[in-house]
């Protein structure tokens, strides 16, 4: 049955259905509604979990680390400054191969301080060893959260579900919440082999040096790469059990016969699909590709979908200052390795909550300049009135 739910409520309900035993968090906009709802569920006896009000995000991440090491399923959520404050612990969770699941309510990173959405926070954690799934809708946020626990616990890798702050966390959409029985059927009870237990004393987090540290890291890398298969399989299985699927690693839209493809992440893709429809109606061969799983980086899936494209535009809400769009840089490398010479046009926009309207997206597509190989990236134009969208010049702002 569909309910009208804020993204935060939808994901909190999904967390409840996954039966975590420990929830720890520190409040930060725009994550707060998620943890407030979970706190209420615990207070009302609807979620049998320990709700721990951490003294910081660093503490929250450490609490879920300890909880999972002691054999409990755990949950935390944060954003922006909070995610960066967690950084040391997030690397540690990944290195210890603890299946922690968290939500990042994507928000810009200061300075200047800004509470609104872009992807700079989670992109900054791209090398931390966490699986990252960027969702487009409230329904997908809830469904991906359920998938995330199964992926994490099978791979023994942590998973970060990234949902756009405000655009999703504070926006109401109809959401189909599955029943407890359906979730229990999809997600087995948590069984962790390396649990802290006096009858089987184990040392977790001991030292390693040059003769074996690299082996730990290599194993982590291979497991991350292999997780692509798991993510695809569990999304497909979710589709069979719940009737909804999200393409696994990448989700394509009207790619058949498209010579121009716009690649993006997260909630902006709804607007992108509208623009694709409009341009298709005008006879332009445009398609879209949504990067759902950014870590592990699905190079092969992207290559397969983009092989036929003549123009590729990556529109992303984060960048590496002085280098350009992060996804674009990685995509260029993947295509180059595959012998594909199509230029990747790196466009940065939507920073700090700025709207990427259909008009702006259309102007970006019209303004793509496939011959400019030297450019690292360009920035999306400011708001464009619907009357002016036919001017390609507008896209160079």
């Amino acid at each position, binding site marked *: 049955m569909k309910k009208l739910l804020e993204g935060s409520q939808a994901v909190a309900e999904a967390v409840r259905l996954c039966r975590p035993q420990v929830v720890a968090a520190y409040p930060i906009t725009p994550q707060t509604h998620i943890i407030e709802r979970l706190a209420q569920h615990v207070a009302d006896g609807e979620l049998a979990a320990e709700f721990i009000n951490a003294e910081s995000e660093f503490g929250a991440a450490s*609490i879920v680390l300890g909880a999972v090491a002691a054999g409990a399923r755990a949950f935390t959520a944060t954003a922006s400054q909070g995610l960066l404050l967690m950084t040391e612990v997030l690397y540690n969770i990944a290195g210890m191969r603890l299946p922690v699941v968290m939500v990042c309510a994507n928000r810009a990173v200061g300075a200047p301080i800004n509470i609104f959405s872009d992807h700079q926070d989670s992109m900054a954690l791209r090398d931390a060893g966490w699986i990252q799934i960027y969702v487009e809708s409230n329904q997908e946020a809830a469904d991906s959260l359920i998938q995330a626990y199964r992926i994490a616990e099978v791979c023994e890798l942590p998973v970060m579900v990234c949902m756009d702050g405000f655009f999703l966390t504070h926006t109401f959409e109809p959401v189909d919440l599955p029943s407890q029985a359906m979730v229990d059927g999809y997600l087995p009870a948590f069984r962790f082999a390396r649990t802290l237990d006096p009858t089987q004393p184990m040392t977790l987090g*001991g030292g390693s040096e040059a003769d074996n540290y690299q082996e730990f890291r290599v194993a982590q890398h291979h497991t991350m790469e292999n997780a692509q298969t798991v993510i695809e399989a569990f999304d497909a299985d979710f589709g069979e059990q719940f009737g909804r699927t999200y393409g696994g690693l990448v989700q394509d839209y009207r790619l058949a016969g498209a010579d121009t493809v716009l690649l993006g992440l997260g909630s902006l893709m709804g607007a992108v699909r509208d623009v694709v429809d409009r341009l298709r109606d005008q006879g332009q061969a445009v398609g879209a590709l949504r990067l759902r799983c950014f870590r592990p980086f699905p190079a092969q899936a992207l290559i397969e979908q983009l092989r036929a494209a003549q123009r590729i535009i990556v529109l992303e809400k984060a960048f590496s200052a002085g280098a350009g769009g992060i996804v674009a840089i990685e995509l260029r490398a993947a295509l180059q390795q595959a012998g594909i010479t199509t230029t990747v046009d790196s466009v940065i926009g939507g920073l700090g909550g700025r709207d990427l309207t259909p008009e702006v997206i259309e102007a970006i597509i019209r303004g793509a300049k496939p011959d400019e190989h030297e450019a690292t990236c360009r920035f999306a134009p400011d708001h464009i009135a619907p009357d002016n969208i036919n001017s390609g010049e507008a896209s160079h702002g």
Partner: protein
Amino acid sequence: MDKRDPFRHNVLTSGHRACSGCGEAMAARMVTDLIGPDAIYVNATGCLQVFTTHNQQSAWQAPWIHSVFANAAAVASGVEAALRAKGKETPVVVQAGDGGTFDIGLQCLSGMIERGHDVLFVCYDNEAYMNTGVQRSSSTPHAVRTTTSPPGRLSQGKHHLKKDVISIIAAHHLPYAATATVAYFPDLKAKVEKAMTIKGPRFLHILSPCPLGWEHDSALSVTVSRLAVETGLFPLVELEHGELTGVMRLAAQRPVEEYLRPQGRFKHLFGSKEGAVELRHLQALADARIRRYGLLSADTEWDTESVAQVQRHGRGGYVSAPQEMDDER
């Protein structure tokens, strides 16, 4: 299935890599043997973590976890919450050095206590960052030489006072907080045992000499920690719900110089006019602590059970002042 070796019962086994005379190794051996292997140990980064879990080896025969430097109390909070959720009552013990307690770990520790987690936090205080090569911490006493508080033409060592961490902890009004040293094992034993009978957050602050960083003979670790108590520089106290409930009374006060002389970290204070000023300052600090806790008051009559324990065991520790002890009795 219980997979423990039935012939080895120590929680911290031999073969670890601590320096000879390491006060922290001694203290950790005492504490963990008193608590036993049916507990979960959470360790902050520091000497104890490094010398017990070097490169895929482990000296621990109990479940043990290390995450990062600052977060031991938060990891323990999570472990304890998980155990509570699962209906288990396994004790949870944090072990940290002074860096992981006074400085980088203080925020997580405060949060753990404020939330009332059922965890014993043990601080092995060797008064500097010994693991990284003797840099000053906020636990380093006034005028001590470390590599980052070096004496020089313009300096007599550390410029700042040792942080009064037991008062900070006690201000959380937690059920139990106490100080101890490796020199008074009966006292330490009584405090660990008492702590293990109490629910909620508990804190033990154990002065643990470091022959390397304090620059004393490695055979003198116990002697030096006893002198820290007998000079009044490190009072042995107990606090319950924020109130002082026990002190180890001193039979007589020894001059701080007796404590400072065997330690190279104070050597620069002897033989100069500027050093003499700092020596007087250190003596004044000891005098103030003796007054504050009433360490010399003959008529200190505490009437709670905990105080009786400290006095009973504490009197056994007066080994270096037998005559005064007899007079006291």
